[in-house]
């Protein structure tokens, strides 16, 4: 059993699931009906990606694991998602900015991952790339719109950058399992995609008339199970039925 491969696949799955969870919280509460649909659609894409990765992780794990045991029966310390996915949605600026930062990262990540020596990972990445391309476009348009919109929206976007930026560094600090998979070209060298990501962010920020923070600090831990205090609440809510009615089929 390849523990690193399982961990890596779970890391990708958890990141997608928690992101989908947060986005789905907007459903029915968006600022414009068309955008309510858009953000729900993105949530759906993320849940779909999560399912693909979980199914693969389950097949690697054996032991009766399924996509649902992995999503619903692990506690905080076993989740490996990026911290940035679990912070609260905040306002529309914070949500769309996070979407942009995460989707741009995923874009370069999946671009590489589609050439993984692991066929399953490659296939999921290739399949997801079209969705992610749309997510990047949609979210970058919002970042630009809000940054170059009204004074209020500009201020709100700046506040969002202030809230979120420290959580982006974690994307590019490889966990041990990432480093291991890197050597045999199963995973992606996140350090190598950082400049691409940064370039894209700078480009969009420039159009949005905002800057990348001069000083920053890397909030990390998610990849190895050390999370923010928010994740516990997410899981308590998400996992309630599976926990309260063990073994039931739905």
């Amino acid at each position, binding site marked *: 059993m390849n523990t690193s491969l399982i961990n890596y696949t779970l890391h990708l799955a958890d990141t997608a*699931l928690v992101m989908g*969870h947060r986005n*789905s*919280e907007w*459903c*029915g*509460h*968006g*600022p*414009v*009906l*068309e*955008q*309510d*649909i858009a953000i*729900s*659609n993105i*949530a*759906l894409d993320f*849940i*779909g990606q*999560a*399912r693909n990765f*979980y199914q693969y992780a389950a097949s690697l794990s054996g032991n009766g694991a399924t*996509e*649902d045991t992995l*999503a*619903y029966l692990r506690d905080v310390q076993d989740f490996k998602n990026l911290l940035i996915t679990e912070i609260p949605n905040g*306002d*529309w600026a914070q949500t769309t900015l996070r979407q942009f930062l995460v989707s741009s990262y995923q874009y370069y990540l999946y671009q590489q991952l589609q050439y993984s020596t692991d066929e399953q990972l490659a296939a999921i990445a290739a399949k997801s790339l079209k969705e992610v391309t749309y997510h990047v476009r949609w979210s970058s348009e919002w970042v*630009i*719109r*809000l940054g*170059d*919109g*009204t004074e*209020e*929206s500009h201020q*709100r976007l700046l506040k969002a950058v202030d809230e979120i930026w420290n959580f982006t560094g974690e994307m590019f600090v490889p966990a041990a399992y990432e480093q291991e998979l890197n050597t045999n070209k199963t995973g992606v060298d996140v350090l190598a995609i950082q400049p691409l990501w940064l370039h894209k962010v700078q480009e969009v920020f420039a159009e949005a008339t905002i800057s990348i923070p001069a000083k920053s600090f890397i909030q990390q831990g998610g990849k190895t199970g050390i999370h923010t205090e928010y994740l516990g609440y*997410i899981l308590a*809510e*998400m996992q*309630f*039925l*599976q926990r309260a*009615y063990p*073994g*039931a*089929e*739905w």
Partner: protein
Amino acid sequence: MEKDMEQMFQERIDKEIRIEPKDWMPEKYRQTLIRQISQHAHSEIIGMLPEGNWITRAPNLRRKAILLAKVQDEAGHGLYLYSAAETLGISRDEMYEQLHSGKAKYSSIFNYPTLSWADMGAIGWLVDGAAIMNQVPLCRTSYGPYARAMVRVCKEESFHQRQGFEILLTLSRGTEAQRRMAQDAINRWWWPSIMMFGPKDDESPNTIQSMKWKIKRFTNDELRQKFVDICAEQIKILNLTIPDPDLKWNETTGHYDFGPINWDEFWQVIAGNGPCNKQRLDARKKAWEDGAWVREAASAHARKRAERLAQKRA
């Protein structure tokens, strides 16, 4: 002259010729349609909330994806319907304003809370089921844009209804706790669903005119009976009970008899005294108010872009 127009209009209706936005129509026809279509649109939007309440708590990933897609479909229905209403000369913002001020109504059923996962099944089976019963005839309604919107809506709704029934079926074949959950949901949703067809025919004053205009094609009681007949059969598959001791097959009428409806509850909920009226409307108003700065920013940005483009061209 106006009289002649009205006569010609009615003749077109009688010949089943669709009325289109640019056609002449009686003011009352227009107003009735605006009221009905916007009420329907609002119902889709408010209807997102009770089901949206379970997206983050869906019991597995497959159900989560299905539910999220379903609620998103409802937003889509709202969109088609608002567009159809706009062809009658009212803006979406005006319609929202009427919703938020309480002037416009929406389907009362969405003022009931969703208290367990089984409610997702009961809403699909009963609420969407009743909605389809009401809506299928509207695919042939006299106003073109409305009829075309309804075709799309109905196609998706019947899909949702099957999904709902399947949720209940799974629960009904599950553990004791799941069966109890399913029965409890049916107990709570049955009567409100029955009320979705509106007051009894003799207390539904607009029905005659609406039927003449072919905005409506069956009476409330006709549709209600049809719905009861279908559900009374389907419940057998679930091996659960419809909470009506008077529900009984009537050989003579060829229909199921059913017990008296608590119309007092119906009028109370319409009057704003349902379990969730305030909660639902507050949620929508909050979404709208919280979104104001976003909409302003989007317009401001669009303006800026247009100006820049104009400057470039100049």
